[in-house]
C-alpha cells in the first residue's frame, strides 16, 4: 500500500513564525502536491513538484514556498505565518505515466495565532 505521511497532525504557531510542514511518501512517486482545504472552498493547490528540485506554482502559491531535495520528501514552508494561513494542509503523491490518481497523507491542521 502507498503510504504518505505528514510530520504533524496538529500544529499551533504564532504570527510571523517560520513553519515547516513535511511530507514523505514511500512509493517512489515522481509527483508530489500540497493543498490547503478550507470550508466552502474545497481543495486548492498550493504547489506541486514532478521531480527532485523541480517545483511549479499551483492556484494559491502566495505566502508559501516548497522544497524537494529528495524524491520521497516534499516540504511546504510558510516563511512568515499569518492568521489567514490557518487551515488543513494536505500532501499527496502520484506516479507519472498514467492517470493522475493521487494518494493523500492524513493532513496537518495548522492554527496560526
Amino acid at each position: 500500500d502507498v503510504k504518505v505521511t505528514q510530520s504533524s497532525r496538529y500544529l499551533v504557531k504564532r504570527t510571523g513564525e517560520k513553519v515547516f510542514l513535511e511530507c514523505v511518501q514511500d512509493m517512489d512517486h515522481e509527483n508530489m502536491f500540497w493543498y490547503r482545504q478550507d470550508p466552502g472552498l474545497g481543495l486548492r493547490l498550493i504547489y506541486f513538484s514532478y521531480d527532485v528540485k523541480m517545483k511549479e506554482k499551483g492556484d494559491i502559491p502566495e505566502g508559501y514556498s516548497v522544497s524537494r531535495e529528495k524524491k520521497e520528501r516534499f516540504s511546504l514552508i510558510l516563511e512568515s505565518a499569518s492568521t489567514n494561513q490557518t487551515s488543513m494542509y494536505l500532501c499527496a503523491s502520484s506516479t507519472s505515466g498514467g492517470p493522475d490518481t493521487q494518494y493523500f497523507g492524513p493532513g496537518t491542521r495548522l492554527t496560526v495565532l
Partner: protein
Amino acid sequence: SQQGEEDPQALSIQEGENATMNCSYKTSINNLQWYRQNSGRGLVHLILIRSNEREKHSGRLRVTLDTSKKSSSLLITASRAADTASYFCATDPGNMLTFGGGTRLMVKP
C-alpha cells in the same frame, strides 16, 4: 479554480438506503475520479472512470459518466453508517487534477 461541482452539498439518509451524488464539470477531461474523506483525515481514492467509459462498478459503488452533459454521478448502494464522509469528484483534463467542493454524506443508523 474548481472544475468540478458536487450536488448536493449535503445529504442525510438512513442506513440501508442508496445515496446518489452528482458532479458537473466545465472542460473536456481524460478521466474523472471520486475520492472519500473521513472527518479530519486525508482523501482516499475510490474509483476512476475514463472519458470513453459510461459506467463503472466497484463493490457497492456505481459511477456513471456523461461527457455530453459534462456530468458524473456516484451511487452508493445499501449505505452503512461507516459510509458517513465527504465525497469529492476530481477531474483530470490532462495537466492537473481539480477537485470539487464535495458532498457531505451522513448515514444515520
